[in-house]
């Protein structure tokens, strides 16, 4: 093999096999489990509406119109008791994942939960359900080092070195985040409201907006600018995050974008958290060192 080709191949395999800091995986795992728990808590009051036979979504019809096999644990759950039990079971899986106890098994339980409820009630899914389901798959296949977990407490007390694991899971999460933004921008290229810059005005007049009102019309020009800025930010964020020394600008831009959306909209805080969770895959070992130092310094300061 030519040296050039070999170099290219080595760089490519490095995307997946280069060592990564186990604490970054742990950070993503904890954040994912936490956001999943919040999502479950949001669904809990409406579980009877979405998942039972007396609710709004007819399971037999969903099964009939599902493309491919209908695989859902809700096939076994018809009443509120069994549905509640399954939600509690899934919640326990999320808790175990958060604590890092039997993490692979717990990640499996959480992934099955996401697939199951997406199949059972596809008509009530929201954008962050898709983000969480894709992340659940990536967490499931990622390395699960014993780090920042209940099981690693002893190791932590003994100041054991941070384990190194292959970085393929983080790479795929990073690409997933970039794919979300780039897809969103490309899908809007055909839309005249996005291209004319009127999107933000319509958004702020819609039911999604927290404060819809005639005030929106006074800021037409500013909102045109904001519409284009959103597109620009969605294109720029993946690039900023991927360049190591610019990543904090990427974090800042992303948090600003999603916090802005959450502030101006109803019910999009979980979308904000679901997206920020994927940002964590861009953290670097020095960020984790800084975080651990801060955490270790706190008891000394007392």
């Amino acid at each position, binding site marked *: 093999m030519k040296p050039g080709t070999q170099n290219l191949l*080595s760089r490519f395999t490095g*995307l997946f096999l280069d060592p990564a800091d186990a604490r970054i995986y742990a950070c993503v795992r904890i954040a994912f489990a936490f956001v999943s728990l919040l999502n479950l808590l949001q669904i809990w009051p409406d579980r009877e*509406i979405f998942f*039972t036979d007396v609710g709004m979504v007819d399971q037999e019809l969903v099964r009939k119109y599902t493309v491919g096999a209908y695989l859902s644990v809700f096939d076994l759950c018809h009443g509120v008791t069994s549905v509640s039990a399954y939600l509690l079971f899934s919640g326990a899986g999320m808790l175990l994942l958060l604590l890092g106890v039997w993490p692979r098994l717990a990640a499996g339980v959480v992934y099955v939960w996401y*697939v199951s409820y997406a199949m059972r009630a596809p008509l*009530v899914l929201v954008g962050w359900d898709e983000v969480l389901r894709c992340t659940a798959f990536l967490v499931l296949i990622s390395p699960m080092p014993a780090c920042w977990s209940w099981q690693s407490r002893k190791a932590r007390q003994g100041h054991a070195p941070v384990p190194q694991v292959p970085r393929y899971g983080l790479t*795929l999460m990073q690409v997933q985040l970039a794919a979300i933004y780039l897809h969103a921008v490309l*899908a809007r290229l055909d839309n005249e409201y996005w291209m004319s810059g009127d999107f933000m005005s319509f958004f702020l007049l819609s039911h*999604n907006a927290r404060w819809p009102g005639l005030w929106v019309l006074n800021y037409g020009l500013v909102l045109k600018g904001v519409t284009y800025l959103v597109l620009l930010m969605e294109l720029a964020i993946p690039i900023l995050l991927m360049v190591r020394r610019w990543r904090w600008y990427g974090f800042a831009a992303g948090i600003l974008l999603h916090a802005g959306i959450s502030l101006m909209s109803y019910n999009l805080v979980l979308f904000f958290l679901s997206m920020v969770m994927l940002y964590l895959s861009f953290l670097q070992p020095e960020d984790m060192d800084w975080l651990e130092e801060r955490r270790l310094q706190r008891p000394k300061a007392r």
Partner: protein
Amino acid sequence: MRASPLSSREKVIVVFASVHLAFLLFGVLPASWRDRIHVSAVFRCYERLTRCHQVWNMFETIPNMNRLEARLVVKEEGRKAKEEGVVLPGLRRFSQHDHVRLNNWMVNVIFNSTRGVFREAYMRSAATALLRTGRYTPKADLTLEVIPAYTRSLKGVQTLKEIAVERPSVLGPFPLGTLVGKNPPSQPTP
């Protein structure tokens, strides 16, 4: 640069991660673009297998609905029509802001012309729930009233000083007994 050859485990990781990476990169394309490419069938197959659907058209379409109300109206012959909530079970009232997922149900079921079968199923379930309350007879007529208010054009909002215009639509009326007859419920309780 790696000096040693890859182990079997590493080869598996590289192959699997490469496949998923290719899947994600292809997923960057909007669905309408993908369908023009030959490998889209393979993409869809993998998407179905992993359940990682790559459709990220967030606000691709314009959010043109300002508000949405929905209610069930039940009319017994010779009596005044009564309003009930649309949320099952319990016939609770629908609130667009409190029920973000139910709002999607409304958009996906009520406003999607291809989902008539889900609307029918809902009407049958609603009829069953109404009869179970014991407040209505099978002869009563059931109508689903949906009142969306659509945002005017920006020029229209500026001129009329009114954000949206209501365009109500109704599904029905259908006799409760007929609806339930299509899907026999368990014995109604008074």
